[in-house]
């Protein structure tokens, strides 16, 4: 029989603060196990730890603020629903990044069906494609420098498989081993894919990188 989840969140402010401080010292894995036992404050701590880094990952992958935020929300909802599916065999970060990555890729496929891309003859998986100007939100335009915007655009112009690894490695700074587990490809493939992604991106950003 499945364990009953205690959904009570009624703590006094002092008690809540004390518990939050206690939870902040725990590892991700300890938090998810506490959440599996019904501790909703542990889930709050997970959200606190991961919301921005997942948002950064998804935003760099999709390049669209609202959709990315929605995907991160959906990621946490999935963690909430599927909390009992998590087992100690994997790192929690690997598990949550896999969920977010899969949702982001699904969104990309959905967009691809919806949008008409200029280079329609190019394949989805193996070739780069151009993205429309509308993909960068006004918020992004005002909140980032020009070169950051250019880099962001060029990252998105990479095919998803290269984009994913370069974001995970060079922006999120995850280890090759963890990337290998998240995207479920062998370690050697991850390394060579990161190298190829860097080569592609440096070629696209030649004008910017040579001038700085």
């Amino acid at each position, binding site marked *: *029989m*499945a364990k*009953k*989840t205690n*959904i009570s969140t009624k703590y006094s402010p002092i008690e809540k603060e004390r518990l939050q401080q206690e939870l902040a010292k725990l590892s991700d894995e300890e938090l998810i196990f506490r959440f599996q036992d019904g501790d909703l404050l542990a889930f709050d701590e997970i*959200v606190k730890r991961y*919301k*921005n*880094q997942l*948002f*950064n990952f998804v*935003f*760099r992958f999709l390049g669209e*603020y609202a959709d990315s*935020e929605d995907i*991160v*929300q959906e990621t*946490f*909802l999935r963690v*909430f*629903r599927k909390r009992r599916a998590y087992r100690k065999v994997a790192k929690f970060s690997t598990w949550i990044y896999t969920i977010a990555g899969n949702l982001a890729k699904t969104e990309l496929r959905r967009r691809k069906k919806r949008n008409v891309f200029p280079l329609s003859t190019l394949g989805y998986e193996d070739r780069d494609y151009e993205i429309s100007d509308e993909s960068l939100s006004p918020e992004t335009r005002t*909140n*980032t420098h020009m*070169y*950051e915007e250019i*880099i*962001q655009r060029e990252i998105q112009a990479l095919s998803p498989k290269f984009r994913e690894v*370069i974001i995970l490695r*060079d*922006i999120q*700074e995850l280890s090759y081993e963890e990337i290998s587990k998240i995207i479920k490809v062998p370690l050697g493939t991850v*390394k*060579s894919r*990161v*190298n190829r992604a*860097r*080569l592609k*991106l*440096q070629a696209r*950003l*030649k004008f910017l*990188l*040579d001038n*700085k």
Partner: protein
Amino acid sequence: MINCERFTSLITDYLDDNLDKQQKAEFKNHLQSCKECAAVFERVNSLQQHLKKLPSVKTSPVFDIVLKNRLRRELVKNTTWNLFENPWIKISVIGLSAAAIFLIAFFSLYYPSISSKQQQGFSSTVSNFQTFTDRADSTNLSQQQVEEKIYFVIEEIPADLFMSERQHFDLLFSTNAHSDSTFSSLGQIKQPAYTKSLVTVTF
């Protein structure tokens, strides 16, 4: 010596310090001798720094509120669903469902066919009765023996289905059994349409 293609394939390994001594030496030699490859190497190196420096985007201020609302809805849904995790509630729901299915099946299947079952069960009894009365005539049994056997035959009527009819049958028999009627008259059974009075036995 490594060529340009090999050189570019090793850039990441060089930057991650994953090359052995010989590979590292060959890499460095090519780096110094090939301007194009050196430029690529510089750009890759610079790119890494740029990517690391990209500002980390943050969720909107309403992110937590929106998530909490979505989770609240999820919790309500989850709580309702969790009711079924309680074994007693689960058993009760299953039991009630089974009872409801049984009752529906009973009323929809049993009642339309009850008259045919009555017909079948009662025909069998009547048939036995007739066989017995024929035999009673030919074997000259005493009245007491006939009564015993008649009761035996009556016993065969399914009590649950034919209780009222059986009582009626018993009443008729007990009223008439002590008359001076002949054994052959016992066999005169009328079987009218299956109304409330299912059977009438005349002696």
